[in-house]
């Protein structure tokens, strides 16, 4: 056991925790003022829902003793046996509980990311049911496949340092399924869906950037050089992406925007996530610069395709995460991390193929499972609020309160 590592992972857990309220602000500012609370709530209350789920069965399903590479057993139900001693498999220098709570924060933010796709129109009851089912049937297996000892994607040799596939691709693609199933908001195409409070969104983006240091550097599970590398490349990618996003806007629409800077920063963070433990600073620069091109293009394409992913979860997390996972296959180097692998540019094209397969599996699995879960939730409680409730706004119709009273 190492006290420095333990302190670092606990602090990183707290940083990752802060990302979820940060995400709430990021999304809340982009909603209209009649839906600000419901949008904040759909992120914030996941701290409650998933923590309970994680303690009871989530952690055990994701990281418990392996069954055929598919799922962890329920041996650790209620955190039985997850104690103050280090685990044999996860973070050998920190208490098992520290690893568990660090992973808990990841499990929390992932379903919160999806909520941006169905913001402003989903029933709160349907949202809660969906979140529990999604965490259990999509997140837990996927986390096991990629990070669990014996998980089959991990064994395949795919690299995912801090959750590009598990967190960002899975949430981004599930967001696509959700946007398709729940349908567009009332007035889509005729009403202007203008963000009601961009200062809130920029504050949220700032908190996400800050918390992301825990997300990526903390994934080293030790206070060492690899953590420092992850910290630095995370910062570089985010900074570069914020810059490249506003340059693209400037060229394409004539003005650089604040929302663009915030979106770019988050896209950069998403893209570097899987790569942060395997690539160096210059690779981070390229990953950050290009992610904005991909995400900006994807968001423009959204309006052509006509689906209503309200807050662009697909465009930023789905596409940004996919780019990040593939970029890991290009830029990974064993000079950065000897436990990793070399990518295409370091003489190993095989890694790119492995990364591609991991991405494809995540896309297909998350998309199909989310479709099924949403159909089931729709049958049980109904997904959408009534037209009248949507007009009045979800704050008053779902929560009996309003964000602003003048």
């Amino acid at each position, binding site marked *: 056991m190492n006290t420095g590592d333990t302190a670092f992972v606990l602090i990183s857990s707290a940083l990752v925790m802060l990302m979820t309220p940060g995400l709430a602000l990021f999304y809340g500012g982009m909603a209209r003022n009649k839906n600000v609370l419901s949008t904040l709530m759909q992120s914030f209350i996941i701290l409650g829902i998933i923590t309970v789920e994680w303690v009871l069965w989530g952690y055990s399903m994701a990281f418990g003793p392996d069954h055929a590479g598919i799922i962890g057993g329920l041996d650790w139900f209620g955190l039985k046996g997850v104690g103050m001693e280090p685990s044999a498999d996860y973070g050998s220098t920190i208490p098992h509980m520290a690893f568990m709570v660090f992973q808990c924060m990841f499990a929390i933010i992932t379903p919160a990311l999806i909520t941006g796709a169905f913001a402003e129109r989903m029933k709160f009851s349907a949202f809660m049911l969906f979140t529990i089912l999604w965490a259990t049937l999509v997140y837990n297996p996927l986390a096991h496949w990629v990070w669990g000892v014996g998980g089959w994607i991990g064994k395949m040799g795919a690299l995912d340092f801090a959750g590009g596939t598990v967190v960002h691709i899975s949430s981004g693609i599930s967001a696509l399924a959700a946007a398709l199933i729940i349908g567009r908001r009332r007035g889509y195409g005729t009403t*202007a*869906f*203008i*963000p009601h409070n961009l200062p809130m969104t920029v504050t949220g983006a700032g908190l996400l950037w800050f918390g992301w240091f825990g997300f990526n550097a903390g994934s080293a599970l030790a206070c060492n050089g690899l953590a420092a590398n992850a910290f630095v490349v995370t910062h570089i990618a985010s900074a570069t992406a914020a810059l490249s996003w506003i340059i693209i*806007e400037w060229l*394409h*629409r004539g*003005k650089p*925007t604040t*929302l*663009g800077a915030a*979106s770019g920063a988050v896209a950069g963070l998403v893209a570097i996530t899987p790569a942060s433990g395997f690539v160096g600073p210059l690779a981070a620069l390229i990953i950050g610069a290009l992610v904005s091109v991909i995400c*900006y293009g994807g*968001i*423009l394409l959204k*309006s052509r395709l006509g689906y209503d992913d309200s807050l*662009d979860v697909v*465009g930023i997390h789905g596409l940004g995460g996919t780019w990040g996972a593939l970029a890991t296959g290009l830029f990974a180097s064993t000079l950065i991390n000897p436990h990793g692998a070399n990518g295409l540019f370091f003489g190993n094209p095989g890694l790119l193929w492995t990364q591609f397969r991991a991405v494809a599996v995540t896309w297909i699995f998350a998309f199909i499972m989310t479709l099924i879960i949403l159909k089931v939730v729709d049958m049980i409680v109904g997904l959408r609020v009534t037209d009248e409730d949507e007009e009045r706004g979800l704050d008053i119709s779902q929560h009996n309160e309003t964000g602003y009273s*003048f």
Partner: protein
Amino acid sequence: MKKEDLILVNITKPDIVSNDKAYRKNRKGVKIMKKIEAIIKPFKLEEVKDGLSRMGVKGMTVTEVKGFGRQRGHKEVYRGAEYQVDFVPKVKIEVVMDSKLVPQAIALIQEKARTGKIGDGKIFVIPVEEVVRIRTGETGKEAI
């Protein structure tokens, strides 16, 4: 944006109260008091206010409003998606004054609020039936 409520004075119908003295006095009031409603560009408010104060206007009501005239709105772009925003923010000034001051006030507002570009706003002049100072009960010109 606060919705502005116009307080409409309920004018009693003439055929019912044609003998009513108070009503006739009010009709006389219409000729001697006017309300000026000016919709102007928000950044011109200070100049107009200072000008009117120097002219001897003792009070005014100002409201943030939104609307459009020939200027129409402007475009806003969020993540590449373009929206036409039709309602442009303006400021509405309401001042009640002696009818004799009206031509001077109009000239002043026109001078101070004008930029020469489309969207400078409009001035409306409306007859005022009666003014009552709530504290003292004074009416008519004394109450302005």
